[in-house]
């Protein structure tokens, strides 16, 4: 859910050519080569288990809670996100943690406890597929086309960003990075389908933790522990605000992000976070692959537990850099002009600081794995939505199952090729990145309103669903255009002229989600609802949720959700 680093990464490309940050030795190259060999082998190994559409697109719905849960959180744990948020931690301090805690944990728990039963028992293949069952073809078509289009563009942007990072960090040629990564991803996803993508996401998850965990461990040893680190940062930056989560958010001007707690709680914690974690098919697809309802409910809860720990390998290195690096990092535009290191290079810089041969290769492999699995996630979700919700729904409804599998494989290749094309397009027009990420966020927040009302309110109608989604999306676009052409409008959109970009995003998401809900309710009340008999398995109050028979109380998803929720509250209080 992090799109902030794109602009910065684009600027990297304009930076003067200088020596690469990392020099790899033979052992490091061997570590990277072994990873590529393993990934491709897994693709070939799983080819035989992706023969039916259920196997290719849904991994046969055979994943355990742990695999689905790790894959769910891993699909979001891209390298660009890691590097971007480590840079944000250096720039804004511990405030960046909000995107991992309030911006993820409540939404993930909500998905597992409230929403997953409806996704799962409806046996839908996708989020647009759920909209089809609940609201009909119009809402499904709008959702599917937007998602497919944006997903494949995002994949291209990720690919380009990876190539840029590899160029800056390792000195690798852009074309080499783009083609090697895209061909590898195309091979293993086209061969093994979603199962192959999920397997590689698990490997990526392990690699990211093993490759990045040494940085905070050694960093804390060097800094002399957390308390010493806080004092060192305060002394060096002249402020205590870098190590407090909430106490500086009473006013936009009191913190470096220019953010207010209402925006964090309602905009980030509800509209953006729930929109992303509960309706973005890229992540929801992983949970839908679970082998039973209990696993499907546990998967987001397990994912939330791990997500809560990610700041340890992302935010903490950024904070440590504030204390231990002998030089100051600068904003990207200054770095471009002066040749200094930018905020976004903090993670590779810390990697080089603590890791020698072998460990360096492991860290770089973790970055490459993160990029590739992010790309694979986008491509596999694109293939599913295209095949089921566009091609199968509107172009060829009566094809055989093998035909749809074949279409899925071709879609994977086509998706990768379009992504490569996007990568080259972005190379010549970097500003496209900002518009694509904007478009993506325009669609996600209103979709939350549509899906939530669909699941929780029997009275929501087919027309209400479509027009609500349409109105919410138009609201988001309208607000973006308004502020873009008239910056003074920020005082109305974000309630303060002091609000900064991230705060504007949060309030825009909140407005668009609210507009979607209001329009959906009004149109629904004016139109004819579906009878209850047609809502079985889709809506709260009209569905019988299958009972789960856990042998022990501690096996219940609700208990584990409670454990994660308590951990979430305690952490927020500790770092208040």
């Amino acid at each position: 859910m992090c799109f902030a680093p794109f602009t910065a990464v684009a600027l990297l490309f304009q930076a003067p050519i200088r020596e690469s940050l990392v020099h790899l030795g033979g052992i490091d190259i061997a570590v990277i080569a072994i990873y590529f060999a393993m990934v491709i082998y897994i693709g070939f190994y799983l080819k035989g288990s992706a023969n039916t559409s259920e196997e290719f697109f849904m991994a046969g719905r055979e994943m355990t809670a742990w695999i689905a849960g790790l894959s769910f959180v891993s699909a979001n744990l891209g390298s660009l996100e890691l590097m971007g948020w480590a840079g944000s931690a250096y720039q804004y301090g511990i405030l960046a943690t909000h995107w991992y805690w309030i911006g993820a944990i409540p939404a993930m728990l909500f998905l597992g406890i409230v929403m997953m039963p409806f996704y799962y028992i409806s046996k839908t293949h996708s989020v647009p597929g759920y909209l089809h069952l609940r609201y009909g073809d119009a809402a499904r078509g709008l959702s599917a086309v937007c998602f497919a289009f944006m997903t494949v563009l995002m994949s291209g942007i990720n690919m380009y960003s990876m190539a840029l990072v590899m160029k800056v960090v390792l000195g690798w040629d852009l074309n080499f990075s783009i083609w090697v990564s895209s061909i590898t991803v195309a091979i293993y996803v086209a061969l093994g389908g979603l199962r192959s993508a999920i397997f590689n996401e698990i490997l990526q998850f392990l690699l990211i933790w093993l490759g990045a965990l040494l940085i905070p461990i050694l960093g804390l040893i060097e800094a002399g522990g957390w308390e010493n680190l806080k004092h060192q940062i305060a002394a060096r930056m002249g402020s205590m605000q870098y190590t407090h989560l909430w106490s500086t958010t009473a006013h936009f001007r009191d913190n470096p992000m220019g953010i207010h707690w209402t925006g964090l709680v309602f905009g980030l914690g509800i509209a953006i976070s729930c929109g992303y974690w509960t309706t973005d098919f890229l992540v929801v697809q992983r949970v839908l692959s679970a082998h039973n309802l209990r696993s499907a409910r546990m998967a987001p809860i397990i994912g939330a537990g791990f997500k809560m720990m990610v700041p340890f390998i992302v935010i903490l290195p950024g904070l440590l850099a504030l204390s231990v690096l002998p030089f100051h990092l600068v904003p990207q535009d200054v770095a471009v002009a002066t040749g200094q290191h930018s905020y976004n290079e903090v993670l590779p810089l810390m990697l080089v600081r603590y890791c020698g041969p072998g460990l360096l290769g492991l860290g770089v492999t973790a970055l490459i794995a993160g990029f590739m699995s992010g790309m694979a996630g986008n491509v596999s979700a694109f293939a599913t939505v295209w095949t089921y919700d566009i091609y199968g729904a509107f172009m060829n409804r009566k094809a055989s199952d093998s035909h749809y599998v074949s279409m899925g494989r071709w879609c994977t290749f086509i998706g990768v090729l379009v992504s490569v094309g996007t990568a080259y397009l972005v190379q010549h027009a970097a500003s496209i990145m900002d518009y694509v990420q904007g478009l993506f966020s325009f669609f996600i927040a209103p979709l939350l309103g549509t899906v939530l009302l669909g699941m929780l309110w029997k009275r929501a109608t087919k027309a209400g669903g479509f027009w609500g989604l349409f109105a919410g999306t138009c609201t988001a676009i309208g607000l973006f255009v308004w502020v873009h052409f008239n910056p003074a409008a920020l005082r109305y959109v974000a309630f303060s002229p002091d609000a900064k970009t991230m705060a504007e995003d949060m309030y825009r998401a909140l407005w668009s989600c609210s507009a979607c809900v209001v329009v959906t309710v009004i149109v629904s009340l004016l139109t004819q609802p579906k009878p209850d008999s047609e809502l079985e398995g889709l809506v709260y109050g009209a569905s019988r949720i299958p009972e789960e028979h856990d042998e022990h109380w501690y096996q219940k998803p609700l208990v584990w959700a409670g454990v994660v929720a308590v951990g979430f509250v305690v952490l927020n209080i500790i770092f208040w």
Partner: protein
Amino acid sequence: MKGHVQIWFFSGILLLVYGVLITGTGVWELSHPLANPPVLNNLHAPIWWGAIMAVGGLFYTVKFRPR
């Protein structure tokens, strides 16, 4: 995933191979010091971190080996 090698086995193999390689590199560096050692090189992180990976990898490889 009946009849298939589990992802945990693949993970175990990868960690085992990486662990052995990294530990070996760390041991090699004891007799061949680096020209530009990283910070806290005196803690010999490659040796113990690689060993942790190798042991974890070995455990997963054996526990989830195809039968």
